[in-house]
């Protein structure tokens, strides 16, 4: 269990992130973990005076979340990355790479997800 962790729901994201900004936190990054039941754990990491503060929510894949890149521009790249690699969509990104931040047209969709690995293995057979 991470320290300084607050579990939130989707409708709380923007309020909570605004609060972090107002309290002087620096945006560090976001982490995505795919669970056994194919839901996604999404962590937002913030830092103030070396103390890490984490927000966590669990969503279904293909769920559309509000982008926080209008609050923290630094989040724009990691949101694009997560959208491509895990399939969690972010609405209202400051820069939208349209699925081509990391991947190209020929790449598998959401390659970090479990089901995509299964598909690759079946094709190999």
């Amino acid at each position, binding site marked *: 269990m991470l320290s300084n962790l607050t579990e939130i729901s989707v409708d709380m994201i923007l309020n909570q992130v605004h609060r972090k900004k107002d309290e002087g936190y*620096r945006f*560090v990054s976001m982490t995505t973990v795919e669970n056994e039941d194919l839901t996604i754990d999404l962590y937002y990491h913030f830092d103030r005076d070396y103390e890490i503060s984490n927000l966590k929510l669990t969503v279904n894949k293909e769920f559309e979340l509000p982008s926080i890149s209008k609050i923290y521009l630094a989040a724009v*790249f990691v949101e694009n990355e997560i959208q491509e690699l895990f399939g969690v969509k972010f609405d209202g990104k400051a820069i939208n790479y349209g699925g081509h*931040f*990391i991947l190209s047209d020929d790449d598998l969709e959401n390659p970090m997800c479990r089901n995509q690995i299964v598909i690759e293995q079946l094709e190999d057979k």
Partner: protein
Amino acid sequence: MGKTIIPFGPQHPVLPEPLQLKLVMRDEIVVEAIPAIGYVHRGLEKLAEQKDFMKNIYLVERVCGICSNMHALTYCMAIEEIMSIEIPDRARFLRVIWAELHRIHSHLLWLGLLADSFGFESLFMQIWRSREKIMDIMEATAGHRIFISTNTIGGTHKDLSPEQQTEVLKTVQLVYDDMKAVEKVIYNDYTVAHRLTDVGILPTEIAYALGTVGPMARASGIVFDHRTQGYAAYGDLEFEPVVETAGDSHARTKVRLREVYQSIELIREAIGKLPEGDIFTPFKGNPNGEALVRLEQPRGEVLYYVRANGTKLLDRVRLRTPTFANLPSLLHMLPGSSLADVPVLILTIDPCISCTER
């Protein structure tokens, strides 16, 4: 005057790794810049889920050549936190010595590349000649010039003999002397000052808002260095972050040069205080739990998140490298700059794209 879009990279003489910038230009001035990556994405985080957690040490060392030792260190610290492993004192100091050798080698590589980016070939050669000495001592002590695989979960699996310690001290003294000779050029030479001073200014509040880390942040007056938190043996050593306030490319250069001296001091102090004893704490079992660890790589803060499930295979290894955190600063620094300054500005973030893409 209309706008022109110039694709800068992914192949360009100044870029050691493939990064593309779509530069929207009005005449010779950059109006907008959008970075694009995706040329060297290897899926290493996914691969880490399919390897034994011990073998992942060698995998994360290959995320980046320049920071290989510190990627392994961060990963090992994350697993040690999950498994509550306390490493021996001697291993803590050894970790500092090799980490600081790696920092010197990284900063000298960068200083040379920067000189090359504005055509100062003799400065580039002087600095890289000095860097060779660090790479030689890494090979002599750890068996490889770049991938010094010294860290393991529970400590280190290499030690420094008294003779090797003497050689390390001799080498860092030679590098110190070399850098003192080129310091005057970096600080006072007209060409260097002209190409770097007041170029790419990143004010403190913008650097903080953009999540900038490492020498980039410290050159903008932000006192932020994870070594102050005392991981490994840094808590037992004299350490103050190097900070400059101008926020321009020259300040970023000075920070890295001063950090070379600082690393030399840290190595001397760590060798002076190196305790006797074991270098490794044996452990049994598999990790179960999660940990988030951050430490200071040459380019800045690196973050590792590890989630383990009690088996040999991990559920997740997530890493965010310093270049990923410093990319947004380009969105601020490039607009308004001239095309001739673009190579310098890209280099001042010390981009490592294979790190960033993983």
